[in-house]
């Protein structure tokens, strides 16, 4: 029956060998991320390297173990959009907090000078303690 749907199945099963290869690669990357950790890097790089390795590992799992490599189209789109929107939420929340009126965030180690020159107001009382 000719159906107006996307071709259902592309590519055929591969040998089990590539799964093992990916497994080895994942182990190596895990070791790598652990090793990198010991190099006390400066802040952004620390996070960046950890995330880069994690993304690489995730991509490997998604492409090979989860067969995204073989199945294209809508499934890939679903993955990409979900990841993109996750990044969107995280990103914009961070942008907000990073550019806020500083006292609207909890006090940070780095002392900040109010542009209007006022001293930091007394530490806010927080929620009234429960009676």
């Amino acid at each position, binding site marked *: *029956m000719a*159906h107006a*749907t*996307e071709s*259902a*199945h592309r590519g055929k*099963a591969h040998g*089990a060998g590539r*799964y*093992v290869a*990916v*497994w080895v690669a*994942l*182990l190596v990357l*895990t070791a790598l*991320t*652990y090793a990198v*950790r010991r190099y006390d890097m400066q*802040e952004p790089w*620390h996070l960046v390297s*950890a*995330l880069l*390795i*994690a993304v690489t*590992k*995730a991509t490997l*799992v*998604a492409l*090979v*173990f*989860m*067969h995204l490599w073989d*199945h294209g189209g*809508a*499934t890939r789109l*679903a*993955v990409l*959009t*979900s*990841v993109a*929107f*996750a990044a969107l*939420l*995280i990103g914009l*929340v*961070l942008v907000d*907090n*990073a550019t806020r009126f500083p006292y609207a*965030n*909890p*006090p*940070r*180690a780095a002392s900040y000078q109010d542009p209007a020159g006022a001293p930091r107001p007394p530490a806010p009382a927080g929620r009234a303690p429960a009676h």
Partner: protein
Amino acid sequence: MPPEGQATFLQHHFPDAPTQEHAARLGMWLFLATEVLLFTALFTGYALYRYLFSETFHAASKYIETSVGLTNTVVLITSSLTVALALHAARQGQGRRAAALLAATLAFGGVFMVLKGFEYHHHFVTGQLPGRFYAFAELAAPGAAMFFTIYFLMTGLHGLHVLIGMGVLGWLAGRAWRGDFSPAYHTPVELGGLYWHLVDLIWIFLFPLLYLI
């Protein structure tokens, strides 16, 4: 390809088996997308509080045992491999082999949960607990309780997923053993496997973000 098998698993509203398989897979991927966004809410909290309390988070992560996390990472990665191999076996029609591999996965999941349990136990004894239960005197900086709030929420939700995944895989192993799957029909193994891989994927991010700050 046994024709009678074909007839039983093809539902009436699908024109043919490949379309049905495609639909099932697409549905599963969409479900995984929702899982990603479910975790995103927590990752957002993580990102925000790590940004606000970067030093404290750095200090607090020293108190969770990296070696356990590392072991668990290896365990989960390996369990992902066994699931992938199980699907491979199911595709070749080797039901028993698939069942054995699934059982192995299950075992790895169990190891993961046991290790996690030890960790949790340690946190409970030392008072490294979320929010108002926090009672760990050694680290009293603002944000320390928040680290453990985030830690427990994220690993807790993840652990819940591991448990659900184990349930699904156990059921699949049973069916595989009975010989329900064939080269023509193995979609359930594929979907269950996808779910398990997602659980692994999330851990791949949780490990460096919580243990290796």
